[in-house]
């Protein structure tokens, strides 16, 4: 079977059991220094609160830890391996210097409550990043506190709410296009707003006529991703902003796709009132298998008084410090000051690029997406012909005639040494194939990806069953997700306890 796979990659595939199965009493991987103060008796100090034992916590040696996690790591696909064209996720290269500087002792070991006097360097980083993000977005003010994109959305919508409340009426609804990320409606609900769906037009954009019909004094804001999840720039963005502003509503921009705009245009200039940025998308901080991220929120002057507390300010003596005296602030959205480690990395990235590097980065991202679009036209159905920017959405319409769905094509792509694209999103496209190559791919890797996708399209015609069974050369084949959800096993238990459950 394997000989039919072209461009196969193989990888180390040793078996590795769970830590708990490798554990045995008496093995250890630590050594504490001798205690320089008198020993204490926990039973005496803690009484009834003293803990007796630590159950099934593992007992393993250091070499086993290194082997365990190293082996596990080899079972992952990563940006460091190759193209990771997950649409909407922006899986770009994560520069190593970012990692190096984030680990400098004076930054990595800085306590959030240490005196401001010895925190000037950290404060300087926060201030510089703030200023540069304000310039990049064309906004007036920013908070770096939110821990991720969705957290930024919540902060942004709470800003809108606090502002409208200060005018006397927080209003009731938030409008969200049907192509939006799931986080948008979930966010609006968390901020206490009802969600009203806004249908896209045939070009995949906001339909101005229906927007006009839906915007009234009950609408607090429109949450708009621009470019939207089809990769399409909302050409009438300024009109959208005008329609909202005329009724006293605000325009929130989900900045998930800001990597299509940096250095080319600025949301602040085209009418956006408030937006979040995903430092882990546009500004190259690593995705880390799901996080951490960072979701700064930039806004216009009118919203500034409501930003989360504290904010970084220059004090009369010229030093930097935190200002907690913010009477109109919406409050805090996270303890301390946000994911500082990500702030360092994002600043290092901006510094490495400079203005021309950032612009070239955006241009290359858009170039790659359009190159792939051109390369796959015909082989795959393109439901929206509107020009796309940093990502392109095809559908499985042609392949589904043979019973092959987007998820199957994605699995087959794994055999070709690529991470799959985003499957089945955005929801407005049935059987979506959402591809975002990012600027980190060379022409050669784009060519290889196009070739792989075309090969798979051919396979669908000739041997659809072969695609259905993919992937063929991974450690494990497709997993039974139904079984996992019906009878969830969410933790390891020793054999003796697991039996009979």
């Amino acid at each position, binding site marked *: 079977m394997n000989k039919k796979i072209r461009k196969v990659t193989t990888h180390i595939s040793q078996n590795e059991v769970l830590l708990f199965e490798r554990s045995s009493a008496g093995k250890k991987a630590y050594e504490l220094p001798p205690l320089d103060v008198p020993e204490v008796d926990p039973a005496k100090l803690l009484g009834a609160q003293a803990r007796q034992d630590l159950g099934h916590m593992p007992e393993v040696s250091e070499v086993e830890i290194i082997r365990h996690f190293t082996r596990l790591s080899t079972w992952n696909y990563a940006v460091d391996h190759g193209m990771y064209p997950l649409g909407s996720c922006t899986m770009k290269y994560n520069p190593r210097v970012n990692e190096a*500087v984030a680990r400098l002792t004076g930054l990595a070991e800085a306590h959030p409550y*240490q005196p401001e006097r010895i925190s000037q360097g950290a404060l300087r980083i926060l201030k510089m990043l703030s200023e540069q993000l304000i310039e990049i977005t064309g906004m007036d003010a920013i908070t770096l506190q939110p821990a991720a994109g969705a957290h930024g959305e919540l902060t942004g919508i709470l800003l809108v709410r606090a502002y409208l409340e200060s005018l006397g009426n927080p209003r009731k609804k938030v409008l969200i296009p049907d192509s939006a990320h799931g986080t948008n409606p979930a966010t609006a609900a968390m901020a206490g707003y009802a969600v009203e769906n806004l249908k896209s037009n045939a070009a995949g954009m906001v339909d101005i006529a229906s927007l006009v019909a839906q915007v009234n004094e009950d609408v607090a804001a429109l949450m708009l991703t621009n470019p939207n999840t089809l990769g399409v720039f909302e050409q009438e963005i300024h009109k959208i902003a005008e329609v909202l502003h005329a009724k006293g509503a605000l325009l929130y921009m989900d900045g998930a796709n800001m990597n299509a705009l940096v250095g080319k245009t600025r949301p602040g200039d085209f009418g956006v009132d408030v937006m979040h940025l995903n430092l882990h998308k546009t500004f190259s901080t690593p995705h880390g298998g799901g996080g951490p991220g960072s979701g700064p929120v930039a806004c216009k002057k009118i919203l500034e008084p409501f930003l989360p507390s504290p904010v970084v300010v220059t004090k009369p003596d010229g030093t930097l410090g935190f200002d907690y005296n913010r009477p109109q602030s919406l409050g805090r959205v996270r303890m301390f000051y946000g994911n500082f480690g990500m702030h360092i990395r994002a600043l290092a990235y901006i510094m490495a690029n400079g203005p021309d590097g950032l612009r070239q980065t955006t241009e290359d991202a858009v170039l790659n997406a359009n190159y792939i679009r051109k390369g796959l036209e015909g082989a795959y159905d393109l439901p929206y012909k509107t020009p796309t920017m940093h990502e392109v959405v095809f559908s499985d319409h042609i392949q589904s005639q043979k019973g092959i769905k987007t998820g199957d094509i994605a699995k087959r792509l794994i055999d070709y040494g690529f991470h799959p694209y985003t499957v089945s999103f955005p929801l407005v496209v049935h059987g979506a194939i959402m591809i975002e190559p990012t600027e980190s791919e060379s022409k050669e890797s784009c060519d290889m990806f196009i070739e792989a996708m075309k090969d798979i399209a051919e396979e669908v015609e000739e041997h659809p069953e072969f695609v259905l069974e993919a992937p063929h050369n991974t450690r494990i*084949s497709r997993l039974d997700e139904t079984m996992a959800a019906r009878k969830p096993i969410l933790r390891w238990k020793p054999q003796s306890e697991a039996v009979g459950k």
Partner: protein
Amino acid sequence: MRYLPKSESDREVMLRQIGAKSIDDLFAAIPPEYRLKGDLKIPRAYAESEIVEFFRDCATGSAQGYATFLGAGAYSHYRPVVIDSLVSRGEFFTAYTPYQPEIAQGTLQSIFEFQTMICELTGMDVANASMYDGSTGAAEALMMAARLTGRHKSVVASSVHPEYREVITTYARYQGMPISTVAYSKNGRVDLSALEKGIDNETAGVLVQSPNFFGAIEDVAAIADLVHKKGALLIVSIAEAVSLGIVKPPVEADIVSMEAQSFGVPLGFGGPYCGVMATHDKFVRQMPGRLVGQTLDRNGKRGFVLTLSTREQHIRREKATSNICTNQALVALMCSIFMTVYGREGLKDLAKQNLAKAHYAAGEFKKAGATLLFEGAPRFNEFVIQTKTDSYAINDKLLGQRIIGGFPLKKFYPDLGNASLWCCTETTAKASIDAAAKQVAL
């Protein structure tokens, strides 16, 4: 432009292939009046060496070379070097959320191990694979309690970290969730009779922290009794995870909301950290955050997948348990490695050293003339002293000796005057304790 793998001729060939005359064609959708005419006003591109120099300069003079007595929600523990050595593997840190399990078993299995270890330590049945941090996790736990009970009010102890309480206030405001605060008693623990009065039949959740912000370990069993009698749920927040090595886990709680920063996560000026939520099996469908479950592949081989995802925003949208999407996965991996390095015996030994150092320091401070506040409650590695002199003034003096003193409490608890919160971990040297004791006497 060292991060861009293209030559000018590559770009030209690609543009030709697309049928575009110039790159501007691809940006035609942006109305001309909104296209940037010139450069962004940010500094020129820096060489890698210049970047390193800049950040070294920022790092100089900060934290490095200081002994610290700061805790208060962020703890200074030794980080075994294997942590950074392993999380620096590109296979871990440059991977995405494991949506394609066939090529993400590394992340998935390590999360499954994380969930298991958190369950072992907290005594809960199930743990999620991370919230942003302890503060947002606590807020989400209260919202979860409201969904589970169908009630809407919350009660929060005033001995919960003040910044956690600020975050909770922000989250709760628009959830129609009134929050009342319950005072602490003389020994720093929650005032049980005030708590009993504070809970009514509309109370969904009660949040306490243990060890609490003053370092006192709460009597979770007694609190749980009160809370359960009124049909509400008890949420226990743990900010100092190392305490679990020696302090009885809060098994009587309904939800445990933890900040796992102590498990090998750098202080990093406040983040990224790692929130975790753990609960009983019967509550799992109302728990936010990602979960990894065990299953079988087509050949009957064990494997792991993200599961119960219908709780999440990408499926349930505005009806989701939370809007959380990106979490703290890589930080959770740091925690996993830390927990594995110390393991069953080491976490106990480590916690015991923390206990001994804090006990010694409290004793020395008292001998020197400071007043110990909240005596009578068991405590782990933090304690509160009251001094005659202003705590900031004491800290100024200590800073000259390269010692960062305790956290002045007047910022959050003006009533407590010159009280300050001191933390000792396994990294606190006896010499630093003795030096600090001389100053607190003043």
